[in-house]
């Protein structure tokens, strides 16, 4: 075991962990993408993709090969380097955010004690891929789409940040593992339900905060009903108009990785992460690996649940108009979450005690 503590061993172990997480996410993305289309189809009483493989399970892989084998078209007059850099940035940023996500107790690549800030920093960079792609295309629709998207993502980041501050105040830490551990035990310990019986009245604030986080996550990832950057009725496909083949695929994978990431965040921050909602003392007698696998399964189910919610929102809700989107972000979510921060902070100081 000594080898794993040497610099070389540490590098190899970390690289292995990163590879495992990345490949794991990529493979789950393939099926989640299919699930997204299937749910969308189900709501509209269609069948969805059902030709490639049993129940269309291999559809995403067929799409993958189709994308990869097509020609990469770079428009004339495009800024070639920035044009090709933009999807890469989106793709990479969507994956490095997963570095601080704890999948089960101890199953985390980097257990930063400013984990939430790291996530916030990375997600605030996500806008660059879109804005660079839109500008470098040297075309009107992509540019308009990317400007919209930049304004939208910057706006909703504010409310996401303030919502997260509420969780940080209740948990008293920015370490994600610690935040999830704080929610263990019964279901009322989850932060969406106030974070424990001692501070149950905060449910009045925290449950709406969880909903605001969910809606802001939709806006942040440019999902319907907030998919204005790529509103097909007015901007064709927004910043993606000029993209084809693998660069487009990178944009799409990055987008879906961000969506799944947001599902994971809402599960970790508000809905107990890997805690199933009842005490898990019976796991003490299990082997460590099996216990962790069980807890990871719990987190996985929650992620799938939130992904299904996001997929259904896409099918149910009509697209927002741009001024309504901005109104929702700045005039409703921002003041609400700001008041919530004051209330939760006051509760922490005067009711729970420092």
């Amino acid at each position, binding site marked *: 075991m000594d080898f794993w503590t040497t*610099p070389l061993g540490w*590098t190899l172990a970390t690289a292995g962990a990163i590879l495992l997480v990345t490949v794991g996410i990529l493979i789950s993305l393939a099926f989640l993408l299919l699930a997204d289309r299937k749910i969308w189809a189900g709501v509209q009483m269609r069948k969805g993709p059902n030709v490639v493989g049993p129940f269309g399970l291999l559809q995403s892989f067929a799409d993958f090969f189709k994308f990869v084998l097509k020609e990469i078209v770079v428009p004339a007059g495009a*800024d070639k380097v*920035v044009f090709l850099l933009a999807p890469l940035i989106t793709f990479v940023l969507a994956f490095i955010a997963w570095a601080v996500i704890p999948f089960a107790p101890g199953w985390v690549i980097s257990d*930063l*004690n*400013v984990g939430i*800030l*790291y996530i*916030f*920093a*990375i997600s*605030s*960079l996500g*806008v*660059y891929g879109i*804005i*660079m792609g839109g*500008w470098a295309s040297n075309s009107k629709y992509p*540019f308009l789409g990317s*400007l919209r998207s*930049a304004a939208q993502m*910057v706006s909703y*980041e504010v409310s996401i940040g303030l919502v997260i501050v509420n969780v940080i105040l209740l948990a008293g830490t*920015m370490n994600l593992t610690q935040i999830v551990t704080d929610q263990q035990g019964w279901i009322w310990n989850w932060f969406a339900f106030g974070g424990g019986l001692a501070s149950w009245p905060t449910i009045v604030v925290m449950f709406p905060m969880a909903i605001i986080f969910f809606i802001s996550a939709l806006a942040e990832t440019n999902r319907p009903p907030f998919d204005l950057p790529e509103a097909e009725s007015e901007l064709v496909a927004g910043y993606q108009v000029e993209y084809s083949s693998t660069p487009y695929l990178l944009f799409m994978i990055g987008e879906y990785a961000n969506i799944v990431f947001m599902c994971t965040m809402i599960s970790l921050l508000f809905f107990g992460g890997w805690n199933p909602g009842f005490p898990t003392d019976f796991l003490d007698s299990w082997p460590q690996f099996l216990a962790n696998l069980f807890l990871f399964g719990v987190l996985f189910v929650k992620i799938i649940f939130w992904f299904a919610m996001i997929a259904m929102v896409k099918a149910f809700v009509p697209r927002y108009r741009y*001024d*309504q989107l901005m*109104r929702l972000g700045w005039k409703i979510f921002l003041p609400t979450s700001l008041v919530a921060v004051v209330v939760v902070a006051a509760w922490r100081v005067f009711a729970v005690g420092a």
Partner: protein
Amino acid sequence: MLQGIAFYVLAAVTVIGGLLVVTARNPVHSVLWLILTFFSAAGLFVLLGAEFLAMLLVVVYVGAVAVLFLFVVMMLDVDFVRLREGFAKYLPLAVIVAGVLLAEMVMISLVVAQGGAAAASTGPATPNPDATNVEALGRVLYTDYVYIFQAAGIVLLIAMIGAIVLTLRHKPNVKRQDVGRQVGRDRNKAMEIKSVPTGTGVKPEDLV
């Protein structure tokens, strides 16, 4: 060893990025290089053990300030020929400013190298090694320096109000959406049933 490699790589990227900010011909590329510089500076903060500052640098500068830079630079119609026209004219001034900055930096580094000013001061209280970055900063920021901290907040608030005052215009004849009124509208307010006698048609005054 890993730390050493990381430091030299990040420092090199920071310096080269900074150089390219001023030499890049396309202003958008300049901003992109600036972002890279910010980012590697954040990496240097991480190496120093100041992870909170690093994250704040990325959130505030890269995530917000540089996005606005990029916004402005992309929207501006920059004429490169006209930009270069003044180059020779402003060169002497630029050299003087750069020279003063360089001299100051050399002086500071000399003083630091000899342990001058740093050796004289007792320095800040040694941080508690157990406390995390955030905790250590929070403990001083909200106790010893709370008035300065609040004053900084007020300065930002004034700047924000100033920006709003400068840009807010209430134009007449602009239709605005009043969501409360829209939602509160019911069938009785929205429509009225008129009984029109057969064969006479609808006159304009009936509709008012």
